[in-house]
Each structure stands twice: as C-alpha cells, then as structure tokens.
C-alpha cells in the first residue's frame, strides 16, 4: 500500500485508470532493467533479418524488460522448487509427502485422473508433461503476481535511491496479464494440438479429420471454414481469457486502492483516511477472489490444452 502511495504521489496528475494500467502493463520498450549489450545487438540482428525496422511496432526487442525479468525469475523459482520437491519425494519412496509436495501431488493426480485420462486417453503420458508444465507455469505466474514483492523492492529502491530496485517497481508483476506472454503459451498449445493430430494420423488425414464425415456435401462449404477458423480462434481465446482475467483483477485491485488517494486529492487527507478501511476491505476480498481465479485460470488453460489435443487425437469417425 505504501508503494501505491509513493507511486500516486509521483504520478500526481494521473487519473486512477492510468495509474492502474501503469501498474499492470509491462515497462516501455526502451525501459530495460538491465542493459545487456549482446541482447540489443541480437535484437537488431534478428529484427533486420526479418526486415523489421527499429521503429516498427513489431521490432523484436530482446532486452530485459520487467516482464522478461519476472519471467526468468519465476521460471527459475518454479523449476528449482518443483524439481527439488519431486526429487526429494521420490528419493525416499515410503515417506509421506511434505505439505508443499502434497499440494503439487494433488494437482498432478487430479490433472492425471480428471483431465489427461479423460480427454487424451490411455496414451496420456506423451502429453502429460506439457499439460503439467502449462498448469504450473501459469499457476506460478498468476500467484506470484498477487504477492507484491516487486513493489516492496521498488519501495526500498526509491527510499534508498537505488536505480535497479526502483526500476523493478515499474510496471506489473503479473506476466500472465500480458497478452504477449499468454499468446506465446497459446502458440505452444496450438502447435501441440496440431502436432498431436499430424503425429497420429499423418499430415493429410489430420486436416481431413477437421470436417466430420458423413455430412451432405453442401454442408462442407459451411463446416470446413468454420472448423478452420475455430482452429485459430482457440489459441486467441486462450490468450485473451487468461490475460483478461489476470489483468482485470489487478486493475480492479489497484483502482480500489487509488480510491484512497483520489479522495485525499479531492477532499483532503482525512477523506482519504475515511475511505481507506472500505478500500482495503474490498482489496482484501478481491485478492481472495484473485487467488481463486489464479488457480482456476491455470486449470482452465491446462484443461483446454488437453481438450484440444484430445480432439485432435480422438476423432469420431
């Protein structure tokens, strides 16, 4: 909360909406946390290879923005913690899992029994790793976005005039609220479910599977375009569902908090204090809801990936 105050003080003239958006969005393109020479060199090289100019919207900027930093941070944390937990659990075979491992195992067994075996079928092992990785990746990203440690670090950075730490407070910490990140994961889902079909039925038969057999031939002129569009709408829906859910919750959260400061701005400090309990109560409630949404959205992403792969593999003839 202190951080929000700090930020609204520095962006005094901004409207609550701008504050909220600034709080969720990634830092600007040029705003890197670390300046790595090699990465800027790589960015220009790759971009020019594809013929994209530096001022274009599609310029591939590989610099470490805040979201890239959070992405690296969360992936490292996730890989280390999950491998640590699982290795520890498996190495003493008769031991009872510890608390964290119980949670991981609960998700793993639930996804295996209710999603993988249900939608993909007997040979689920081939796709299990993808579904699990998607679930835990999204879950870690969603939940870490709810813990304001970057804001806290940024506060220390501002108080101590540390440029690196205060850079960390800029922009949102929830990478799954960024459509670029969710679109990347959805791309992997897209490649996975097309790859699954091609792998099982061969390239031509897979595309034939798109249209259900046994229809009257004029209907194919309707069904085939719809199915084909559906193919591309699926990853887009995945992208926007996850990003929208995470973004919306965080914007609402920030806006509830900014009530305090806009009241203080308009009616004086005491008005701000007066509304603070309501704002904070709302924010706490919303955070609880967000916690739920974080798990549900991770589950939905994993579930839908499994469903799409299952649809490509188990075709009704």
């Amino acid at each position, binding site marked *: 909360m202190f951080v929000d105050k700090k930020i609204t003080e520095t962006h005094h003239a901004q409207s609550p909406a701008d504050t909220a958006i600034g709080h*969720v*969005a990634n830092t600007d*393109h040029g705003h890197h946390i670390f300046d790595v020479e090699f990465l800027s060199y790589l960015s220009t090289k790759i971009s020019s290879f594809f013929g994209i100019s530096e001022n274009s919207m599609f310029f591939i900027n590989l610099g470490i923005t805040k979201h890239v930093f959070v992405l690296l941070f969360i992936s490292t944390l996730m*890989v280390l913690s999950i*491998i640590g937990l699982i290795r520890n*659990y498996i190495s003493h075979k008769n031991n009872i899992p510890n608390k964290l491992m119980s949670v991981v195992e609960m998700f793993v067994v639930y996804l295996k029994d209710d999603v993988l075996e249900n939608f993909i079928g007997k040979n689920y092992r081939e796709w299990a*790793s993808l579904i699990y990785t998607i679930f835990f990746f999204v879950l870690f990203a969603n939940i870490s976005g709810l813990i304001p440690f970057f804001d806290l670090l940024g506060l220390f950075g501002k108080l101590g005039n540390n440029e690196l730490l205060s850079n960390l407070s800029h922009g949102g910490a929830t990478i799954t609220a960024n459509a670029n990140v969710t679109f990347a994961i959805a791309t992997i889902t897209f490649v996975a479910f097309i790859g699954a079909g091609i792998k099982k039925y061969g390239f031509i038969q897979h595309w034939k599977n798109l249209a259900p057999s046994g229809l009257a031939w004029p209907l194919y002129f309707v069904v085939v375009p719809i199915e084909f569009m559906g193919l591309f709408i699926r990853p887009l829906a995945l992208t926007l569902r996850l990003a929208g859910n995470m973004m919306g919750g965080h914007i609402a959260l920030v806006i509830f908090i900014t009530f305090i400061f806009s009241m203080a701005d308009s009616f004086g400090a005491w008005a701000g204090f007066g509304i603070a309990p309501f704002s904070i109560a709302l924010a706490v409630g919303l955070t609880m809801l967000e916690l739920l949404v974080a798990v549900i959205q991770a589950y939905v992403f994993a579930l839908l990936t499994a469903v799409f792969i299952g649809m490509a593999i188990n075709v009704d003839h």
Partner: protein
Amino acid sequence: MNPLLTVDLGLYVWTLVIFMTVLFVLKKYAWNPLLDFIEEREKDIANSLSMAESAKSDLEKIKDESQKILDQAKKEGKVIVNDSKQKAEDAANNILEKAKVKSDEFIVDAKSKIEIEKQRAIKEIKEEVVDLSIDLASKILQRNVNDDDNDKFIKSSLEAMNIDEAKS
C-alpha cells in the same frame, strides 16, 4: 496505443524460449519420474487390494474347510463312541453268555457226578445189605441156606427194600 495491448515480440520470443526450456527440464527431471512413481504406486495399491481380496476369500475357504473338518471329526467321534459302546456291550454279553454256559456245564457235570456217586453208593449199600442179611440170616437159621433159598430170600428182601426206598 493502450499499453496493455502492446505487441511485444521480444517478450513473446522470450516466453517461448523460457517455456520450452522449462518444459524440457521439468519433463526430464520432474514429471516423468513423478508419473512413473505415481503409476507404480497405483499398481502397488491395486495389487495389494487384490491380494487382500484373495487373502480374504482364502480365509473364508479355510474357515469353511476347518468347519467341515470339525463337523466330520464330530461325526466320526460319535460313530466311534457308538461303535465302541456296541462292542463293549457285545463283549460283555459274550462274556456273560460264556460264563452262563460254563456254569451250566459245571452244574450238569456236578449233577452227573453226583448221580454216579449216588448209584455207586446205592450199589455198595446194596452189596453191604446183601452180606449183612446173609450173615444175619445164617445166624438166625444156624445153618447154611442153599443157593436157591438164598436167591429167593435175597430177591424178596431186595424187593422189600426197593419199596422202602421208593417210599422214602
């Protein structure tokens, strides 16, 4: 443009690369070992359950069998007891019968012996009586009766004695 919907291909590429790396690392070191472990555990549980089930039915069978054996033993015991009772009774009856037969034999034997002794005694007594009566008669007559007289006398006296004997 709205900063929430900025196209950021750099971030997109980063996410792809990081996600694929995470996927391969976790697949190798976490998910596959864990799934192997879970599947093995599930197999173990299923095995133990079926084993428990078969053990239960085995126990049931054994229980039935032991009950059967017990019943059989009871039946056999009863038969044996009845048999031995019968045998004992038979033996007892046998012994009794034998004893009876023997005692009867003894009695018959004794009776016949007694009869023989009696006959002998009577015969002796008769001879004695004859001698005595001859003595007596010769003394009385003071002479020797001839054989004819003798025989007559003896006969008459014997007849008299016989009558006496039958009366007594």
